[in-house]
Protein backbone atom coordinates (compact mmCIF):
# COMPACT_ATOMS: atom_id res chain seq x y z
CA UNK A 1 0.00 0.00 0.00
CA UNK A 2 1.27 3.44 -0.91
CA UNK A 3 2.57 5.54 1.94
CA UNK A 4 0.95 8.88 2.66
CA UNK A 5 2.73 11.95 4.01
CA UNK A 6 1.71 13.46 7.34
CA UNK A 7 2.99 16.67 8.81
CA UNK A 8 2.02 18.25 12.11
CA UNK A 9 3.43 20.12 15.07
CA UNK A 10 4.15 17.88 18.05
CA UNK A 11 4.88 19.66 21.32
CA UNK A 12 6.10 22.70 19.42
CA UNK A 13 8.34 20.98 16.88
CA UNK A 14 7.54 20.15 13.27
CA UNK A 15 7.18 16.48 12.43
CA UNK A 16 6.85 14.91 8.99
CA UNK A 17 6.57 11.20 8.24
CA UNK A 18 5.43 8.79 5.57
CA UNK A 19 2.91 6.35 7.01
CA UNK A 20 0.56 3.63 5.81
CA UNK A 21 -2.87 5.11 5.08
CA UNK A 22 -5.22 4.31 7.96
CA UNK A 23 -2.50 4.36 10.64
CA UNK A 24 -3.86 5.65 13.93
CA UNK A 25 -2.28 8.72 15.47
CA UNK A 26 -1.39 6.57 18.49
CA UNK A 27 0.64 4.16 16.35
CA UNK A 28 2.22 6.99 14.35
CA UNK A 29 3.31 8.77 17.53
CA UNK A 30 4.62 5.68 19.28
CA UNK A 31 6.07 3.61 16.44
CA UNK A 32 7.12 6.19 13.86
CA UNK A 33 7.90 9.35 15.82
CA UNK A 34 8.98 7.73 19.07
CA UNK A 35 6.75 9.59 21.51
CA UNK A 36 5.59 6.77 23.77
CA UNK A 37 3.80 8.97 26.30
CA UNK A 38 0.29 8.20 24.87
CA UNK A 39 -0.52 4.62 25.90
CA UNK A 40 -2.48 2.02 23.97
CA UNK A 41 -4.93 0.62 26.51
CA UNK A 42 -8.18 -0.60 25.03
CA UNK A 43 -7.99 0.74 21.44
CA UNK A 44 -11.78 1.13 21.72
CA UNK A 45 -12.18 4.66 23.08
CA UNK A 46 -13.06 3.40 26.54
CA UNK A 47 -9.97 3.87 28.74
CA UNK A 48 -8.56 7.29 27.80
CA UNK A 49 -4.91 6.21 28.16
CA UNK A 50 -4.15 7.40 24.61
CA UNK A 51 -5.59 10.91 25.17
CA UNK A 52 -3.73 13.75 23.44
CA UNK A 53 -4.59 17.40 22.80
CA UNK A 54 -5.21 18.27 19.15
CA UNK A 55 -5.67 21.98 18.38
CA UNK A 56 -6.69 22.60 21.99
CA UNK A 57 -9.24 19.75 22.19
CA UNK A 58 -8.90 16.47 24.03
CA UNK A 59 -8.93 13.54 21.57
CA UNK A 60 -8.32 9.82 21.65
CA UNK A 61 -5.27 9.08 19.51
CA UNK A 62 -6.24 5.39 19.16
CA UNK A 63 -9.41 6.34 17.24
CA UNK A 64 -7.89 9.24 15.27
CA UNK A 65 -6.22 8.55 11.95
CA UNK A 66 -2.83 10.28 11.72
CA UNK A 67 -3.48 11.60 8.21
CA UNK A 68 -6.52 13.56 9.47
CA UNK A 69 -4.11 15.56 11.66
CA UNK A 70 -2.20 17.21 8.81
CA UNK A 71 -1.36 20.77 9.83
CA UNK A 72 -2.61 20.25 13.39
CA UNK A 73 -0.88 21.19 16.61
CA UNK A 74 -0.63 18.17 18.92
CA UNK A 75 0.35 18.17 22.58
CA UNK A 76 1.30 15.03 24.51
CA UNK A 77 2.41 14.59 28.09
CA UNK A 78 6.03 14.21 27.01
CA UNK A 79 5.97 17.85 25.89
CA UNK A 80 4.91 19.34 29.22
CA UNK A 81 8.16 19.49 31.18
CA UNK A 82 10.36 22.45 30.32
CA UNK A 83 14.10 21.99 30.58
CA UNK A 84 13.81 19.27 33.20
CA UNK A 85 11.28 21.22 35.27
CA UNK A 86 8.03 19.30 35.58
CA UNK A 87 4.69 20.88 34.64
CA UNK A 88 2.61 21.78 37.73
CA UNK A 89 0.22 18.90 36.90
CA UNK A 90 3.09 16.40 36.75
CA UNK A 91 4.49 17.77 40.03
CA UNK A 92 1.06 17.56 41.69
CA UNK A 93 0.49 13.98 40.47
CA UNK A 94 3.82 12.92 42.02
CA UNK A 95 3.25 14.80 45.28
CA UNK A 96 -0.31 13.48 45.72
CA UNK A 97 0.62 9.84 44.93
CA UNK A 98 -1.83 10.11 42.05
CA UNK A 99 0.17 7.68 39.97
CA UNK A 100 0.75 4.05 40.82
CA UNK A 101 1.40 1.78 37.85
CA UNK A 102 1.46 4.94 35.75
CA UNK A 103 -0.26 3.59 32.66
CA UNK A 104 -3.27 5.92 32.84
CA UNK A 105 -1.25 8.92 34.01
CA UNK A 106 -0.35 10.57 30.65
CA UNK A 107 -4.02 10.41 29.57
CA UNK A 108 -5.20 11.75 32.93
CA UNK A 109 -2.72 14.63 32.69
CA UNK A 110 -3.86 15.50 29.16
CA UNK A 111 -7.52 15.54 30.26
CA UNK A 112 -6.61 17.65 33.30
CA UNK A 113 -4.52 20.06 31.21
CA UNK A 114 -7.42 20.80 28.84
CA UNK A 115 -9.65 21.41 31.86
CA UNK A 116 -7.19 23.83 33.51
CA UNK A 117 -6.50 25.60 30.20
CA UNK A 118 -10.21 26.50 29.96
CA UNK A 119 -11.17 26.50 33.65
CA UNK A 120 -8.21 27.60 35.81
CA UNK A 121 -10.12 27.18 39.09
CA UNK A 122 -12.37 24.15 38.61
CA UNK A 123 -14.75 22.75 41.19
CA UNK A 124 -14.34 19.16 42.30
CA UNK A 125 -17.33 18.19 40.14
CA UNK A 126 -15.73 19.81 37.11
CA UNK A 127 -12.54 17.82 37.72
CA UNK A 128 -14.52 14.57 38.02
CA UNK A 129 -16.39 15.38 34.80
CA UNK A 130 -13.16 16.25 32.96
CA UNK A 131 -11.56 12.94 33.97
CA UNK A 132 -14.70 10.89 33.32
CA UNK A 133 -13.35 9.40 30.10
CA UNK A 134 -10.16 8.15 31.75
CA UNK A 135 -9.96 4.87 33.64
CA UNK A 136 -7.51 4.18 36.48
CA UNK A 137 -7.37 0.69 37.99
CA UNK A 138 -4.89 1.50 40.79
CA UNK A 139 -5.58 4.65 42.71
CA UNK A 140 -9.33 4.80 43.23
CA UNK A 141 -9.32 8.25 41.56
CA UNK A 142 -9.35 10.33 44.75
CA UNK A 143 -5.59 11.14 44.70
CA UNK A 144 -5.90 12.07 41.01
CA UNK A 145 -8.78 14.47 41.69
CA UNK A 146 -6.81 16.00 44.57
CA UNK A 147 -3.71 16.36 42.35
CA UNK A 148 -5.65 18.28 39.71
CA UNK A 149 -7.17 20.58 42.34
CA UNK A 150 -3.68 21.11 43.85
CA UNK A 151 -2.20 21.94 40.44
CA UNK A 152 -5.01 24.43 39.85
CA UNK A 153 -4.24 26.14 43.16
CA UNK A 154 -0.51 26.17 42.36
CA UNK A 155 -1.23 27.76 38.97
CA UNK A 156 -3.44 30.48 40.45
CA UNK A 157 -0.83 31.26 43.14
CA UNK A 158 1.87 31.58 40.48
CA UNK A 159 -0.39 33.85 38.45
CA UNK A 160 -1.19 36.07 41.44
Amino acid sequence: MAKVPVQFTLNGSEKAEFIDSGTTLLNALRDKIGDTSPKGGCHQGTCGACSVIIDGELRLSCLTLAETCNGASITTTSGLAEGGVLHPLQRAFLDAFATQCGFCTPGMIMAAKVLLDHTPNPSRDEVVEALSGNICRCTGYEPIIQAVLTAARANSQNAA
Partner: protein
Amino acid sequence: MALALQTFATVKDATAALKVRGTRYLGGGTLVVRAANEGDVSVSGLVRSTDPALSSIAVVGGKVRIGASVTMAAIASHPDLGALAKAARAVGGPAIRNMATVGGNLFAPAPYGDFAVALLALDATVDTSDGELPIESFLAGRDDNHALIISVGFTLPKAGGFRFLKVSRVKPKGVSVLSIAAVLEQAADGTVSSARIALGCMADRPMRANAAENALLGRTIDREGIAAALAVAGEGTSPITDPIASAWYRAEVLPVHLGRLLLS
Protein backbone atom coordinates in the same frame (compact mmCIF):
# COMPACT_ATOMS: atom_id res chain seq x y z
CA MET B 1 -4.21 -3.45 9.58
CA ALA B 2 -3.91 -0.35 7.46
CA LEU B 3 -7.01 1.09 5.84
CA ALA B 4 -6.85 3.38 2.85
CA LEU B 5 -8.54 6.69 3.67
CA GLN B 6 -9.88 8.83 0.84
CA THR B 7 -10.84 12.43 1.51
CA PHE B 8 -13.26 14.30 -0.78
CA ALA B 9 -14.21 17.97 -0.88
CA THR B 10 -17.86 17.31 -1.78
CA VAL B 11 -20.64 15.07 -0.51
CA LYS B 12 -21.28 13.97 -4.11
CA ASP B 13 -17.77 12.56 -4.63
CA ALA B 14 -17.72 10.92 -1.21
CA THR B 15 -21.09 9.29 -1.91
CA ALA B 16 -19.75 7.79 -5.14
CA ALA B 17 -16.67 6.42 -3.35
CA LEU B 18 -18.86 4.88 -0.62
CA LYS B 19 -20.46 2.56 -3.16
CA VAL B 20 -17.32 0.39 -3.23
CA ARG B 21 -17.88 -2.78 -1.19
CA GLY B 22 -16.22 -2.72 2.25
CA THR B 23 -15.98 1.07 2.29
CA ARG B 24 -17.25 2.88 5.37
CA TYR B 25 -17.66 6.56 6.10
CA LEU B 26 -15.22 7.99 8.65
CA GLY B 27 -16.85 10.55 10.94
CA GLY B 28 -15.29 10.94 14.36
CA GLY B 29 -13.79 7.46 14.26
CA THR B 30 -15.42 6.30 17.49
CA LEU B 31 -17.32 3.52 15.71
CA VAL B 32 -15.47 2.70 12.52
CA VAL B 33 -11.84 3.03 13.72
CA ARG B 34 -12.85 1.17 16.84
CA ALA B 35 -14.24 -1.62 14.62
CA ALA B 36 -11.00 -1.69 12.61
CA ASN B 37 -8.93 -1.79 15.82
CA GLU B 38 -10.99 -4.77 16.95
CA GLY B 39 -10.15 -6.59 13.74
CA ASP B 40 -13.40 -6.08 11.84
CA VAL B 41 -12.27 -7.29 8.41
CA SER B 42 -15.50 -6.11 6.75
CA VAL B 43 -13.98 -2.61 6.77
CA SER B 44 -11.48 -2.40 3.93
CA GLY B 45 -11.50 1.29 3.10
CA LEU B 46 -12.58 4.60 4.59
CA VAL B 47 -14.09 7.67 3.00
CA ARG B 48 -14.62 11.12 4.46
CA SER B 49 -15.72 14.49 3.16
CA THR B 50 -14.68 17.97 4.21
CA ASP B 51 -17.86 19.50 2.69
CA PRO B 52 -18.84 22.45 4.93
CA ALA B 53 -22.52 21.41 4.68
CA LEU B 54 -21.66 18.46 6.93
CA SER B 55 -20.29 20.53 9.78
CA SER B 56 -22.76 23.41 10.17
CA ILE B 57 -25.54 24.03 12.68
CA ALA B 58 -28.45 26.21 11.54
CA VAL B 59 -31.28 27.32 13.82
CA VAL B 60 -33.85 29.38 11.92
CA GLY B 61 -37.36 30.13 13.17
CA GLY B 62 -37.44 27.20 15.55
CA LYS B 63 -36.22 24.76 12.90
CA VAL B 64 -32.88 23.10 13.56
CA ARG B 65 -30.54 21.51 11.03
CA ILE B 66 -27.40 19.84 12.32
CA GLY B 67 -24.74 18.63 9.87
CA ALA B 68 -23.76 14.98 10.17
CA SER B 69 -20.15 15.82 11.13
CA VAL B 70 -21.15 18.07 14.02
CA THR B 71 -19.76 16.70 17.28
CA MET B 72 -21.57 16.12 20.55
CA ALA B 73 -19.33 18.78 22.15
CA ALA B 74 -20.43 21.35 19.53
CA ILE B 75 -24.11 20.61 20.22
CA ALA B 76 -23.63 20.70 24.00
CA SER B 77 -22.07 24.17 23.80
CA HIS B 78 -24.34 25.71 21.12
CA PRO B 79 -26.29 28.67 22.54
CA ASP B 80 -29.55 27.81 20.71
CA LEU B 81 -29.49 24.10 21.50
CA GLY B 82 -29.58 24.31 25.29
CA ALA B 83 -32.58 21.98 25.41
CA LEU B 84 -30.50 19.21 23.81
CA ALA B 85 -27.28 19.81 25.78
CA LYS B 86 -28.13 17.17 28.35
CA ALA B 87 -28.56 14.51 25.67
CA ALA B 88 -25.32 15.52 23.90
CA ARG B 89 -23.40 15.50 27.18
CA ALA B 90 -24.74 12.01 27.93
CA VAL B 91 -22.48 10.62 25.20
CA GLY B 92 -19.06 9.36 26.33
CA GLY B 93 -16.42 11.37 28.16
CA PRO B 94 -14.96 14.73 27.03
CA ALA B 95 -12.62 13.22 24.42
CA ILE B 96 -15.38 11.10 22.87
CA ARG B 97 -17.70 14.13 22.75
CA ASN B 98 -15.01 16.06 20.85
CA MET B 99 -14.98 13.30 18.23
CA ALA B 100 -18.37 11.54 18.11
CA THR B 101 -20.69 12.96 15.45
CA VAL B 102 -24.45 13.22 15.03
CA GLY B 103 -24.26 11.12 11.87
CA GLY B 104 -22.32 8.38 13.61
CA ASN B 105 -24.68 8.30 16.57
CA LEU B 106 -27.50 7.24 14.21
CA PHE B 107 -25.56 4.01 13.59
CA ALA B 108 -24.38 3.35 17.14
CA PRO B 109 -25.61 -0.06 18.32
CA ALA B 110 -27.13 -0.42 21.81
CA PRO B 111 -25.98 0.31 24.50
CA TYR B 112 -24.62 3.35 22.61
CA GLY B 113 -26.54 5.94 20.60
CA ASP B 114 -28.06 8.01 23.40
CA PHE B 115 -28.29 11.09 21.18
CA ALA B 116 -30.18 9.16 18.50
CA VAL B 117 -32.77 8.38 21.20
CA ALA B 118 -33.22 12.12 21.66
CA LEU B 119 -33.52 12.63 17.89
CA LEU B 120 -36.15 9.89 17.70
CA ALA B 121 -38.28 11.59 20.36
CA LEU B 122 -37.90 14.86 18.43
CA ASP B 123 -39.23 13.03 15.33
CA ALA B 124 -36.23 14.24 13.34
CA THR B 125 -35.78 13.81 9.62
CA VAL B 126 -32.53 12.39 8.28
CA ASP B 127 -31.23 14.00 5.11
CA THR B 128 -29.11 11.55 3.14
CA SER B 129 -27.54 11.53 -0.29
CA ASP B 130 -30.59 9.44 -1.32
CA GLY B 131 -33.09 12.00 0.03
CA GLU B 132 -34.89 12.75 3.28
CA LEU B 133 -36.64 10.21 5.43
CA PRO B 134 -38.17 10.08 8.92
CA ILE B 135 -35.69 8.95 11.58
CA GLU B 136 -37.87 5.96 12.48
CA SER B 137 -37.64 4.59 8.92
CA PHE B 138 -33.96 5.46 8.77
CA LEU B 139 -33.18 3.55 11.97
CA ALA B 140 -35.21 0.54 10.81
CA GLY B 141 -33.22 0.31 7.58
CA ARG B 142 -29.81 1.51 8.76
CA ASP B 143 -28.08 -1.86 8.40
CA ASP B 144 -28.59 -1.72 4.64
CA ASN B 145 -27.86 1.98 4.29
CA HIS B 146 -25.27 2.89 1.67
CA ALA B 147 -26.13 6.58 1.48
CA LEU B 148 -24.14 9.34 3.11
CA ILE B 149 -25.85 11.17 5.97
CA ILE B 150 -25.80 14.91 5.33
CA SER B 151 -27.78 16.32 8.24
CA VAL B 152 -30.61 15.83 10.70
CA GLY B 153 -33.47 18.29 11.04
CA PHE B 154 -36.16 18.81 13.65
CA THR B 155 -38.39 21.43 15.22
CA LEU B 156 -37.01 22.84 18.44
CA PRO B 157 -39.35 21.73 21.26
CA LYS B 158 -41.13 24.34 23.38
CA ALA B 159 -39.29 25.40 26.53
CA GLY B 160 -39.46 22.51 28.99
CA GLY B 161 -41.11 20.29 26.40
CA PHE B 162 -38.11 18.00 25.93
CA ARG B 163 -37.10 15.58 28.64
CA PHE B 164 -34.10 13.27 28.63
CA LEU B 165 -32.77 10.70 31.05
CA LYS B 166 -29.77 8.41 30.81
CA VAL B 167 -29.41 5.76 33.48
CA SER B 168 -25.91 4.44 34.07
CA ARG B 169 -24.20 2.74 36.98
CA VAL B 170 -20.98 4.75 36.83
CA LYS B 171 -21.20 8.47 37.53
CA PRO B 172 -20.77 10.87 35.86
CA LYS B 173 -19.90 8.85 32.76
CA GLY B 174 -21.06 5.35 32.15
CA VAL B 175 -22.57 3.15 29.50
CA SER B 176 -26.38 3.21 29.44
CA VAL B 177 -28.53 0.81 31.37
CA LEU B 178 -31.17 2.60 29.35
CA SER B 179 -31.98 6.07 28.09
CA ILE B 180 -35.34 7.75 27.59
CA ALA B 181 -36.25 10.90 25.68
CA ALA B 182 -39.74 12.40 25.66
CA VAL B 183 -41.43 15.32 23.93
CA LEU B 184 -44.78 16.09 25.55
CA GLU B 185 -47.35 18.74 24.70
CA GLN B 186 -50.12 19.62 27.10
CA ALA B 187 -53.48 21.28 26.44
CA ALA B 188 -54.64 24.29 28.46
CA ASP B 189 -56.29 22.00 31.03
CA GLY B 190 -52.99 20.19 31.61
CA THR B 191 -53.90 16.98 29.81
CA VAL B 192 -51.43 15.50 27.36
CA SER B 193 -52.29 16.41 23.78
CA SER B 194 -49.29 14.79 22.12
CA ALA B 195 -46.55 12.49 23.35
CA ARG B 196 -43.46 11.04 21.76
CA ILE B 197 -41.32 8.75 23.90
CA ALA B 198 -38.11 7.13 22.64
CA LEU B 199 -36.19 4.38 24.40
CA GLY B 200 -32.52 3.39 24.20
CA CYS B 201 -31.15 -0.09 25.07
CA MET B 202 -34.67 -1.54 24.97
CA ALA B 203 -33.94 -3.07 21.53
CA ASP B 204 -30.85 -3.27 19.32
CA ARG B 205 -31.51 0.33 18.28
CA PRO B 206 -33.58 3.27 19.56
CA MET B 207 -37.34 2.62 19.48
CA ARG B 208 -40.60 4.47 20.16
CA ALA B 209 -42.76 3.45 23.12
CA ASN B 210 -45.99 3.64 21.11
CA ALA B 211 -48.23 1.98 23.68
CA ALA B 212 -47.06 4.30 26.46
CA GLU B 213 -47.48 7.33 24.18
CA ASN B 214 -51.10 6.40 23.41
CA ALA B 215 -51.85 5.68 27.08
CA LEU B 216 -50.72 9.20 28.01
CA LEU B 217 -53.05 11.01 25.61
CA GLY B 218 -55.80 12.91 27.42
CA ARG B 219 -54.24 12.14 30.81
CA THR B 220 -52.65 14.50 33.29
CA ILE B 221 -48.98 14.28 34.25
CA ASP B 222 -49.32 12.99 37.77
CA ARG B 223 -48.88 9.65 39.48
CA GLU B 224 -52.41 8.48 38.60
CA GLY B 225 -52.42 9.93 35.12
CA ILE B 226 -49.25 8.17 34.02
CA ALA B 227 -50.02 4.79 35.63
CA ALA B 228 -51.56 3.33 32.47
CA ALA B 229 -48.57 4.46 30.38
CA LEU B 230 -46.08 2.91 32.80
CA ALA B 231 -48.01 -0.37 32.75
CA VAL B 232 -47.51 -0.70 28.98
CA ALA B 233 -44.05 0.94 28.76
CA GLY B 234 -42.36 -2.36 27.97
CA GLU B 235 -44.72 -3.28 25.14
CA GLY B 236 -42.79 -4.23 22.00
CA THR B 237 -39.40 -3.93 23.69
CA SER B 238 -36.67 -6.52 23.35
CA PRO B 239 -33.92 -5.22 25.62
CA ILE B 240 -30.28 -6.13 25.13
CA THR B 241 -28.28 -8.18 27.63
CA ASP B 242 -24.70 -6.98 28.10
CA PRO B 243 -22.19 -6.59 30.96
CA ILE B 244 -24.04 -3.47 32.13
CA ALA B 245 -27.44 -5.10 32.68
CA SER B 246 -29.55 -8.09 31.67
CA ALA B 247 -32.62 -7.80 29.49
CA TRP B 248 -34.70 -8.80 32.52
CA TYR B 249 -33.25 -5.96 34.61
CA ARG B 250 -33.75 -3.38 31.89
CA ALA B 251 -37.38 -4.45 31.47
CA GLU B 252 -37.96 -4.29 35.24
CA VAL B 253 -36.55 -0.78 35.72
CA LEU B 254 -37.93 0.86 32.56
CA PRO B 255 -41.32 1.82 34.09
CA VAL B 256 -39.59 3.17 37.20
CA HIS B 257 -37.30 5.47 35.23
CA LEU B 258 -40.04 6.47 32.76
CA GLY B 259 -42.19 7.45 35.74
CA ARG B 260 -39.39 9.56 37.22
CA LEU B 261 -38.77 11.28 33.88
CA LEU B 262 -42.47 12.08 33.35
CA LEU B 263 -42.94 13.40 36.89
CA SER B 264 -39.68 15.37 36.94
